[in-house]
């Protein structure tokens, strides 16, 4: 894994695995949890739950829009309905159902999209969730979550389940660097400050949080001290932390494994523009689909590494 390598971060589990384990564990204390699948539980890892609670697990076949509707019906009867597929399939194929049957009536449906980002690698662009956050943000009332490592995935899964209302969480396919530990604390809507610095702030989500830490390390070697925020909750967004970053560090760079259109960066920019305008830079996938290839090679080709953050950060810093 190219990301985090220069920091020597140990590589942990994929966030999809940690989500699957946490969901199964929560199933023991939460009999109201039910899970709906579309023939991909071995990919999304809801299979762990299915194995232990077969009666509360429903595989409806390859039928994402139906799957979302079924989950909404279960939720209407007091269930905490978790529905999961690849991020692109559930958000794109199930979108109208998410809008009309889940968001509009504010049903307690937890949508989990796996295989988010381009780091899924060889399966290629048709399987990559690169627009899922934008779509989730287009569903009024949805909480939107993006865990950076296995500890974050476990903690956010618990918070998502134990907080009523519709939510979307994206998970990744790859084993990723560990940033947190079991004691790390998470609050929905409150960014985690992972590094202090007063020259600029890097606000990142998911896999790019490790890249942000690595970039901060590289920037420090050049005398630029970067603050790093893990924006694990993209809605409700931590506007306070963003405004403070703008006031105190004078420039902000965002990094996400998602299309720039409608993603984290643009959400942050809206807050910055509204509160304390400062120069900004954006790292993400720019108006294109990726291709097939090894994950590391893709991250390099599409500009999603620590070096890319450093490059964009210096440009923003120069305009500070």
């Amino acid at each position, binding site marked *: 894994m190219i990301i985090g390598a220069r920091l020597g971060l140990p590589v942990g589990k994929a966030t999809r695995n940690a989500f699957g384990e946490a969901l199964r564990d929560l199933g023991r204390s939460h009999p109201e949890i039910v899970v709906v699948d579309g*023939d991909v539980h071995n990919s999304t890892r809801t299979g762990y739950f299915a194995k232990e609670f077969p009666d509360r697990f429903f595989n409806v*076949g*390859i*039928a994402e829009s139906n799957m979302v509707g079924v989950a909404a019906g279960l939720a209407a009867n007091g269930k905490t309905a978790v529905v999961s597929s690849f991020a692109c399939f559930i958000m794109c194929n199930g979108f109208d159902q998410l809008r009309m049957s889940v968001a509009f009536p504010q049903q307690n449906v937890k949508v989990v999209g796996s295989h988010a980002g381009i780091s899924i690698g*060889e399966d290629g662009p048709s399987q990559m969730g690169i627009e899922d956050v934008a779509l989730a943000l287009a569903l009024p009332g949805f909480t939107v979550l993006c865990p950076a490592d296995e500890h974050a995935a476990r903690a956010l899964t618990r918070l998502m389940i134990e907080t009523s209302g519709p939510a979307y969480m994206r998970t990744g396919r790859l084993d990723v660097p560990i940033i947190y530990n079991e004691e790390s604390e998470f609050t929905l809507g409150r960014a985690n400050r992972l590094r202090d610095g007063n020259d600029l702030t890097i606000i990142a989500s998911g896999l790019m949080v490790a890249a942000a830490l690595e970039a901060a390390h590289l920037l420090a070697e050049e005398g630029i001290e970067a603050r790093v925020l893990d924006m694990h909750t993209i809605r409700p967004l931590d506007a306070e932390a963003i405004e403070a970053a703008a006031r105190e560090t004078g420039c902000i760079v965002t990094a996400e494994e998602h299309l720039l259109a409608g993603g984290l960066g643009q959400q942050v920019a809206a807050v910055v523009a509204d509160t304390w305008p400062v120069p900004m830079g954006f790292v993400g996938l720019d108006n294109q689909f990726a291709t*097939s290839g090894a994950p590391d090679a*893709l991250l390099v080709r599409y500009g999603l590494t620590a070096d890319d953050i450093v490059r964009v950060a210096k440009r923003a810093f120069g305009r500070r």
Partner: protein
Amino acid sequence: MEEGTRDLGKLSQLAGHMRRTIVEITTKAGSGHPSTSLSMVELLLPLYFGGVLRHDPLNPRWPDRDRFILSKGHGAPALYTVLAMRGYFPEADLSTLRVIGSALEGHPNMLRVPGVEASTGSLGQGLSLGVGHALAGRLDGRDYRTYVTVGDGESQEGQVWEAAMAASKFGLGNLVCILDHNEYQQTGAVRGVMPIEPVNDRWSAFGWHVIEIDGHDLGAVFAAYDEARTIKGQPTLIHAHTVKGKGVRAIEQDEKQSHYHGVPLSPDEARVALEELA
């Protein structure tokens, strides 16, 4: 454009070559869907080598070409292999499957690969595209035919049935759907995950002419394509019973086919498989 052969011995040899190539390139890539690809070999060969498909590898966008759409896009290794064997691009390119920079992505990309009619990989969408192609052919007064391969698991998608309804309403005698009924999908047997039976009755009820065949019997496959050509004013479903992983004993005999769905053979398994297929 050339006539193609109906010599079943010759085609069986080509089938062996296709299967070996599918195993080789997916094992080399280290990912991909060999079992998905192996079940459709005899469905593809009559199209591309038996003269069923009217096409020209040197002119892939020829307006009068027959269309072939691989709706089950994860069967890309089979499609790429037959296209390369037929001269759409060099066979040597096949070894770049899934490598960064290669046009041969994990799922078919029509912008990058000559002969690929549709970009697929999100299941359920190909038959609708086929309806569009067939309608365009009628509008433009062209007599090309459109073929779409759909997976049995894939046919659980509602869109497949929306397309089936439309094809029947519009009386698309120029449209053929090939159902690759290999009994398995990603997480298990189709019967267990979400039954699609009774297949023939369902498609008939949607207004389709149904032909049920053994999808590995080349003679039966030719006969089905020939019969479809005689059906006017109604789309045809070729209900092909197939074996997922056909030709590779390790996969065929695996009770939980899900072990092999989307998983290539290891180099050791591939060696054994290539001997079996020799």
